[in-house]
């Protein structure tokens, strides 16, 4: 069973972009993980922000192990319900401060994408070909049209669009203040896989505020074209296929709203993976991370059953793999 069938439920465009997401990947078995013998909690759709949800249906589905099951088909707005506007993304000039700029990540660290940061990319990456700004005016080269943002997001970036800070406006693909709707199938009662499943390059889940949680951004391809696919404070950006989507969890920083910790101090929940297991933040209220995460970044406790903890906001990942079966619709 492939993610293609899952992706068929997701409203997408037709372009293939290197700038993250959209492609369909086969979920294959890993060889090493063991089946956890732990409690499993059903997906709780009431945790989703009602303003983020277009509809929730209970449908028949087939899991990636071939078993028949029941799933929630959750259609979300694609616009974060806890915000009224997106951005900032690219800095406008080399003097732009952090408050008016977005983020970029590298080697596990999330950086403020300030004008100064952009003006020093040649030093940062040790390559003098980086030149994202006009040396005379200090203006940053930004893909400020739909044509240019889509050209810079393709796998092979034409030379004229290299050395740009890439920024696509959501209004190219949705009405003002709206997102690109997507439907996600979540097994109502998650089922552990015998061996963990690969993530692929498409979405890994959905946030409770109605946004796609994307797989790893292809940073090597992005950087090889001397482009920066700017994120906002929530480590989200726009592509033509998924619209606005997240590549990391950075709640409570800058313009990105915080997520409340659980009553027992455990990190707060912010989404569900496609296998129906919940995804929580990386750190607990004391700023500490669990030491017993499995290779998918999951753990089990008595309150939450099996669940994931997101990687850090600069790590280009939420989870490492699927511990549970993903789903495929049989009746829509």
């Amino acid at each position, binding site marked *: 069973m492939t993610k293609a069938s899952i992706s068929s439920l997701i409203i997408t465009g037709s372009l293939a972009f290197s700038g993250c997401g959209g*492609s369909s*990947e086969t979920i*294959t078995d*890993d*060889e*090493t*993980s063991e089946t956890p013998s732990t409690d499993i909690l059903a997906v709780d759709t009431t945790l989703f922000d009602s303003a983020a949800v277009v509809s929730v249906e209970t449908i028949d589905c087939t899991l990636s192990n071939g078993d028949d099951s029941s799933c929630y088909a959750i259609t979300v707005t694609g616009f974060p319900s806890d915000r009224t506007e997106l951005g900032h993304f690219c800095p406008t000039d080399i003097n732009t401060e*952090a*408050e008016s700029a977005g*983020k970029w990540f*590298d*080697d*596990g*660290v*999330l*950086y*403020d994408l*300030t004008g*100064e*940061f952009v003006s*020093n990319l040649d*030093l*940062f*990456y*040790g*390559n003098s070909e980086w030149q994202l700004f006009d040396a005379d005016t200090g203006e940053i080269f930004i893909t400020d049209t739909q044509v240019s943002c889509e050209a810079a997001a393709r796998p092979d970036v034409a030379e004229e669009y290299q050395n740009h800070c890439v920024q696509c406006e959501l209004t190219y693909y949705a009405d003002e203040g709206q997102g690109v709707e997507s439907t996600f199938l979540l097994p109502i009662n998650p089922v552990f896989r015998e061996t963990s499943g*690969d*993530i*692929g*390059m498409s979405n890994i889940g959905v946030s409770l505020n109605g946004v796609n949680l994307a*797989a*790893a951004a*292809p*940073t*090597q391809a992005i*950087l090889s074209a001397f482009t920066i696919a700017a994120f906002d*404070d929530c480590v989200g950006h726009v592509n033509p296929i998924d619209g606005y989507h997240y590549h990391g969890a*950075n709640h*409570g*920083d*800058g313009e990105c709203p915080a997520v409340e910790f659980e009553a027992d101090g455990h990190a707060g929940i912010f989404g569900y993976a496609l296998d129906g297991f919940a995804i929580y933040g990386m750190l607990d209220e004391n700023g*500490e*991370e*669990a*030491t017993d*995460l*499995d*290779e*998918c*970044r999951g753990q089990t406790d008595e309150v939450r059953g099996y669940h994931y903890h997101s*990687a*850090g*906001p*600069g*790590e*280009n*990942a939420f*989870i*490492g*793999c699927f511990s549970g079966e993903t789903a495929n619709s049989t009746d829509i």
Partner: protein
Amino acid sequence: MNTFSKIVVIVFSGLINAIAQAHNGHGDELPWQACSTSEKNTPCEYTNSHGDIYQGNCKLFGEALMCVRNKPIVRANMSKMLTPIKLDNSNQGTK
């Protein structure tokens, strides 16, 4: 060493460190590089330019393996973390 000299040394060492970092991690995309010759699910580790150590397993994203951490980050010692480098505006706090 007088105060002025200390400042010069700190700033200079920061500059050297920033340049050294440019050739010691940034642009290599260490999470991918850490698994470039590995097999899926094998342990991986990388140390970024801050000296922080990330340990996990090689996981498949599309056709490429990336090191996904599942152990807490081993932070570099405080003296390294306090090295004044303008480029390293890492998001340890709020901006």
